[in-house]
């Protein structure tokens, strides 16, 4: 009897322990969810998010805060993804946008920490299509639409030579390889502060000023990411965090554009992560673009998941001429494109965990 009582007590204790443990876990999970949602509300446009609903739906997008600089535009989005924030960061790092033609990225290549001309060799085999031909034509006549510095423009006349293996004549490919190599090296040593201005035609535009301008106009976001950004080369000199560098050839408004990018990420408290992805150089179409990510671990239907906030900001000369409904339309297009991009990313990565 005593034994039975003891056994029963032990069972009861064990059951109580399990229940307590479950309650504790549930409380932690609920608390983590509440923390994530309240932190999301504190700096983003999403001040009310139902995680259970969000987990079942596609990405949620919204206009960013209006900005006084007419060439700036921002869109925010949030979604729930399966797996932990660390897994999401890794998936972002591995994702290859060139697999999706609709994203209009023709070439994507990661760069070593010390980029050389060889890192851009793929450019010589650029695909033969309308946008690339337009880039070639613009380069050959040193179009005022090219976003390069005066010194870079002078170098084009020095680079002669014929022949081609892809759509790009050797002289054009050599010119861009030269520009991209110098700018990537400069980023490694001096961050965006060391980038030559776009002053080949007209007023000088500096990548650092544009990036800082974008952040300055979104104070809550700037504050949320100040720790991460302070350790990067985005809007400043080279930071303490090591960037993952890449370059791309893409289609912007039917024009071929070569661009340089840098990605950073780091973990925070309680399994959270922050990441920043800056396109700090573009040969045309836009001056700079910046994407920031905040990721929180959450539990949805007993599965480890991640609440992702994404802020996309862009500075583009063409935006400056858009007003009223045209601007509204541009924001809609940007939101639609981001939704598409996130949907493709989620589709590609949902089976990998």
């Amino acid at each position, binding site marked *: 009897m005593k034994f039975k009582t003891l056994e029963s007590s032990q069972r009861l204790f064990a059951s109580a322990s399990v229940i307590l443990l479950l309650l504790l876990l549930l409380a932690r999970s609920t608390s983590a969810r509440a923390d994530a949602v309240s932190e999301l509300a504190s700096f983003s446009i999403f001040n009310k998010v139902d995680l259970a609903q969000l987990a079942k739906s596609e990405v949620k*997008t919204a*206009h960013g805060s*209006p900005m006084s600089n007419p060439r700036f*535009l921002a869109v925010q989005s949030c979604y729930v993804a399966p797996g932990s924030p660390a897994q999401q960061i890794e998936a*972002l*790092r591995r*994702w290859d*946008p060139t697999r999706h033609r609709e*994203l209009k*990225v023709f070439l994507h290549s990661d760069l070593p920490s010390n980029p050389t001309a060889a890192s851009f060799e793929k450019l010589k085999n650029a695909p033969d299509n*309308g946008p690339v031909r*337009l880039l070639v034509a613009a380069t050959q006549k040193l179009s005022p*639409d090219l976003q390069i510095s005066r010194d870079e423009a002078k170098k084009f006349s020095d680079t002669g030579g014929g022949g081609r293996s892809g759509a790009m004549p050797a002289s054009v490919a050599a010119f861009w390889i030269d520009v991209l190599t110098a700018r990537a090296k400069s980023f490694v040593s001096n961050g965006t502060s060391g980038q030559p201005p776009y002053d080949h035609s007209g007023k000088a535009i500096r990548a650092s000023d544009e990036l800082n301008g974008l952040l300055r106009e979104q104070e809550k976001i700037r504050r949320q990411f100040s720790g991460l950004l302070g350790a990067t080369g985005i809007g400043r000199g080279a930071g303490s965090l090591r960037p*993952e560098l*890449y370059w*791309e050839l*893409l289609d*912007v*408004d*039917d*024009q071929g554009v070569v661009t340089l*990018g840098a*990605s950073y990420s780091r973990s925070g408290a309680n399994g959270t992560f922050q990441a920043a*992805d800056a*396109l700090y150089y573009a040969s045309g*179409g*836009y001056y700079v*673009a*910046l*994407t920031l990510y905040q990721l929180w671990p959450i539990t949805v239907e007993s599965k480890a998941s991640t609440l992702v906030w994404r802020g*996309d900001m*862009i500075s*583009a000369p*063409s*935006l*400056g*001429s*858009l*007003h*009223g*409904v*045209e*601007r*509204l*339309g*541009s*924001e*809609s*297009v*940007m*939101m*639609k*494109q*981001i*939704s*598409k*991009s996130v949907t493709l*990313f989620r589709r590609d990565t949902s089976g990998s965990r």
Partner: protein
Amino acid sequence: MTRVEVVERMKNLAHRFFLPAFCVASSILFAASILAEEGNLEGLRDWFLSGEYVAEETYVGGGDVRRNSRKSVRDFDEHDSILHFVITPRIKPGVLRLGAEWERFSFGLPDGTPLPDNLQAVNLVIGLDTQLSDSILIRVEAQPGVYNTGFDDLSDDFNAPFVAGGTYIFSPNLQLVLGVSVDIERKYPVIPAAGIRWKMAPQWVLNAVLPTPRLEFEMNSGLTLYAGGNLKQNSYRVDDQFGDNTGIPRLNHAVLTYSEVRTGAGFDWKISPVVTLTGEVGYQPYREFDFYRAHVRYHQDGGAPYGMISLHGAF
């Protein structure tokens, strides 16, 4: 690593779609409440920092209209003048449209013609562009004002036509437009419209949206050439003695629906970021004066060439 998607331009949508309706009173109340929300002078000043304007003049050469085999009006010309100013402040629900517009048709008619020398609209513009989803933009816009034959009597010629419609953004290169124009004084009070804006190639855009369908060719970032049409239809009320003066008493204070179609080619020259000069020449193949309630209708009997010049822009 994932990447930022790049914005593509959505030019020339501004005047191209029509949208659901607001009654005038609710529009004014809505605008007033938004103004109150701003609550400070700085906010109010920001309101006037964005807007759009048009100053346009069209001259149509000698044309003919006829009512029947015995009654016609020959070789009269036309001036069409437009002034339009609208502020487009950004508010939470979208882009507000508040402003005023003046349009005056002046016809060089022979004396005794049972048609008015002038048709004039002086109206407010009260509207909203807003986003229904990532893919759908809608516009509602009322144009309450006085639609008559001149400044002599503005008292009882009030009308409030409105447009309502939506644009479905299929992709940056293709948008579908559906809309409706409502004017209770017009012969056909409700006119639906549909169209597409399709960027077919880097320099070619088919902007097949009423009232100004066009095929555009962008020579460079500052110059666009186009060919297309312009469909105009509005209703006006003539004065109390108009019928007595022209020998048809039933036309006193009657409603006239005036329609015309222009087809031509022109250019848009962007002189500066806020000033665009447009020049257009072409032929006016259709024109109609229709006192539809009084059953007096003068229709096109001979087209006429026209030329148009316009300064417009947005800031």
